[in-house]
């Protein structure tokens, strides 16, 4: 893992088209601004992990496990 030290207002460039700006540092919190191509979704890690877990759990379903009738 590459580790960089940056101050508020400084940036990191990833590839040709992703720009990460340190907007503000306050105590334990860092505000980042991320400029990236629109086709690239950007997630907070905890959201990404949670959705990944739901997708994977859904993919474990067997045919028999599904309700045969429409839930009411």
């Amino acid at each position, binding site marked *: 893992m590459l580790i960089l030290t940056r101050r508020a207002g400084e940036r990191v460039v990833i590839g040709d088209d992703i720009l990460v700006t340190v907007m503000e540092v306050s105590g334990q919190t860092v505000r980042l601004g991320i400029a990236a191509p*629109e*086709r690239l*979704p*950007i*997630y907070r890690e905890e*959201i*990404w992990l*949670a*959705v*990944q*877990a*739901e*997708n*994977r*759990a*859904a*993919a*474990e*379903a*067997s*045919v028999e*496990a*599904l*309700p*045969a*009738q*429409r*839930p*009411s």
Partner: protein
Amino acid sequence: MPATETITIESSRFGTLRVAPEAVIEFPLGLIGLEGSRYTLLDRNPGSGILWLHSLERGELALPVLDPRPFFPAFELVLSAEDRERIGAPDPAAAQLYVTMRAAPEPADVVVNLRAPLIVHEGRGHQVLNVAPGADLQAPLFPARSRAVDAA
């Protein structure tokens, strides 16, 4: 590249599947945390309201999905400006909308993911983040009434 010929895949759940080109759904960015970008929808339980979103690249990969709107009348889809830009903001009324379902032996434990629905429009699909209040990651599919009956 759009499919032009019938795709045949061996499904671990359903045996041999032959999928017409017009039934192929391309997810340019795939589903979060899952491999592959080509899927199709199978209605193997007509009347249940539950479909299978089946991978056309991995025979063992399929997810039960359903349109949340009939089951959750208060369901609301709110996208971030970034997601709207990314998917081209199809009219929600015109697009197909699905959520993934986590199956479980006990009906009370069956949940759906209202937080990250799938929008399908004209052969393309996107998994998006729903920022509407109350869009739960694990929303019980069966209403509390059913659970009360089960517990009686």
